């Protein structure tokens, strides 16, 4: 990939440093704000919280609807990831290993769904789930989100599966494995990274999406993003302390995921087609 001459010139790039700082400073400031009382945050810009307070976090953990908001969001995101992976893995395998009628165009149609604005199908989705009594459930949000996460997952997984030589399955079949067996024992372990990346992208969409998550939930499945809206709307009163604390808590799952996948992110973003 990169050769020795380039490697010896590596150090710290000023551009990259500046860019990284820019990417992080709003989040770092959010941390500051979350430890400061609202009154102070609303009138002065401090780089260090003064006075320092845990009041914002205390408030959030004491409020049922906030706590449930987090639980709900995590709930439907996990269900979304399960649905997405269950549907995408076989699909990606098919696109990678087989040619079948319409396979070229099928990939295009699949990708199309990722590009569709959620606002377009919001109302019919509400009606659809209403008629099945599924409004305000994790399932409704999870499966609606999978419309958007499955296309990217298939794209990513197809890339990863394609980079495994077909000979692997052929030898396994010769050795007597069934198709399913060789899939589980040979392919799956090798695309672990791909699965992690696909899960990451699904999380990246489902955790942050608001239009559908808001439209399909009322009380029991309301995610934290919607709860936060109550205290962060520009028309109403914006409670900066609480909103900041809520925001930091909302960033933690993403931070955890990024940490676990830190060595695989770049490869994953190239959709498995690196090298």
């Amino acid at each position, binding site marked *: 990939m990169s050769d020795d001459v380039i490697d010896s010139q590596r150090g710290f790039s000023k551009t990259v440093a500046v860019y990284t700082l820019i990417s992080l400073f709003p989040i770092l400031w959010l941390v500051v704000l979350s430890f400061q009382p609202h009154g102070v945050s609303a009138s002065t810009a401090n780089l260090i919280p003064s006075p320092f307070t845990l009041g914002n976090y205390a408030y959030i953990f004491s409020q049922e609807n906030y706590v449930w908001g987090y639980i709900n969001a995590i709930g439907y995101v996990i269900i979304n990831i399960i649905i997405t992976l269950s549907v995408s893995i076989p699909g990606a395998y098919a696109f990678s290993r087989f040619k079948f009628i319409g396979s070229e165009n099928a990939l295009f149609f699949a990708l199309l769904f990722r590009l569709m604005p959620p606002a377009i199908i919001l109302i019919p989705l509400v009606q659809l789930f209403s008629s099945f009594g599924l409004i305000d459930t994790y399932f409704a949000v999870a499966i609606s989100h999978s419309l958007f996460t499955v296309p990217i997952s298939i794209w990513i997984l197809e890339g990863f599966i394609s980079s495994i030589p077909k000979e692997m399955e052929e030898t396994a079949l010769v050795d007597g494995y069934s198709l399913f067996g060789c899939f589980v024992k040979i392919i799956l372990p090798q695309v672990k990274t791909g699965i992690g990346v696909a899960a990451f992208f699904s999380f990246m969409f489902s955790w*942050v999406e608001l239009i559908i998550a808001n439209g399909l939930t009322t009380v029991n499945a309301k995610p934290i993003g919607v709860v936060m809206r109550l205290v962060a709307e520009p028309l109403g009163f914006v409670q900066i302390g609480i909103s900041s604390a809520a925001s930091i808590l909302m960033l933690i799952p993403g931070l955890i995921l990024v940490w676990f996948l830190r060595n695989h992110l770049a490869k994953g973003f190239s959709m498995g087609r690196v090298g």
Partner: protein
Amino acid sequence: MNRINNGAWWLVAPAVVLFAVVGIAPLMATLNYSFQDSFAGDNYFWVGTYWYEELFKSSAFWGAFGRTLLFAAITISLQFIIGIFVARKLYFRQVKAQMVVALIALPLLTPWIVVGFIWRHLVNPEAGLIGASLSLFNISPDLNSVWWVWATIIAMDLWHWTSLVVILCYAGYLSIPGPYFQAARIDGASKWATFRYIELPKLKNVLVIALLLRLADSLMIYTEPLMISRGGPHVSSTFMSQKLIQTAMLEFNLGAAGAISMFYLVVMILIAWILFRYIRSQNV
């Protein structure tokens, strides 16, 4: 194993069912609505292309569409210029690039409502980091002015999404085999020539994917600008998605909303088709 095997459709079947039930069926319903009207929300009757005619005559609609296109054009061009520039530095000059990638991915994982919230507060002239800093130079961001609203929304979008372009391009650079760079150096190619004749062509696929994703997300932007200015002042920051949701949820006008939705969809399909054809032609 790459023979024609239509049995493979069984593997794709779950995806097909998913798309059919949760995607196509609602889209058909929306299409249906776009051709109908009702008196009291209960009895629907056919009105043909009425909503579409109204739509194309509506200056509010074209305003929202035009603003969305302008917004997308500005932010996407800036994101690609900055993104490719930073990706090159990451690839050629930065040690421990993987760590950096993890760090700059954070804006991409920030819930959209948080993005809107923090940027609104950032430009507050007294209490916001950016606003207060600017105030030291007697520049006071005022979210009642169209200029500041647009500047804030654009800055916010750049912060939010440029990293996607950076990471995608960086990954693209990783897949350019070293010998290409060596050959260019041996031939004495300038940096610009290397960029133009080796790097850019090899990045084509990645750039198109990045463009596709950015276009889609840019044209459907909703939550973030809503948090900054709620579409104001007046309608100057009302983009397509907000117009659509207003029409559907606030005005309960499902017919007009249906027409807007179909128009939106056709635009996205066109863009996707053009870019897809381009990828296909490059990978033959």
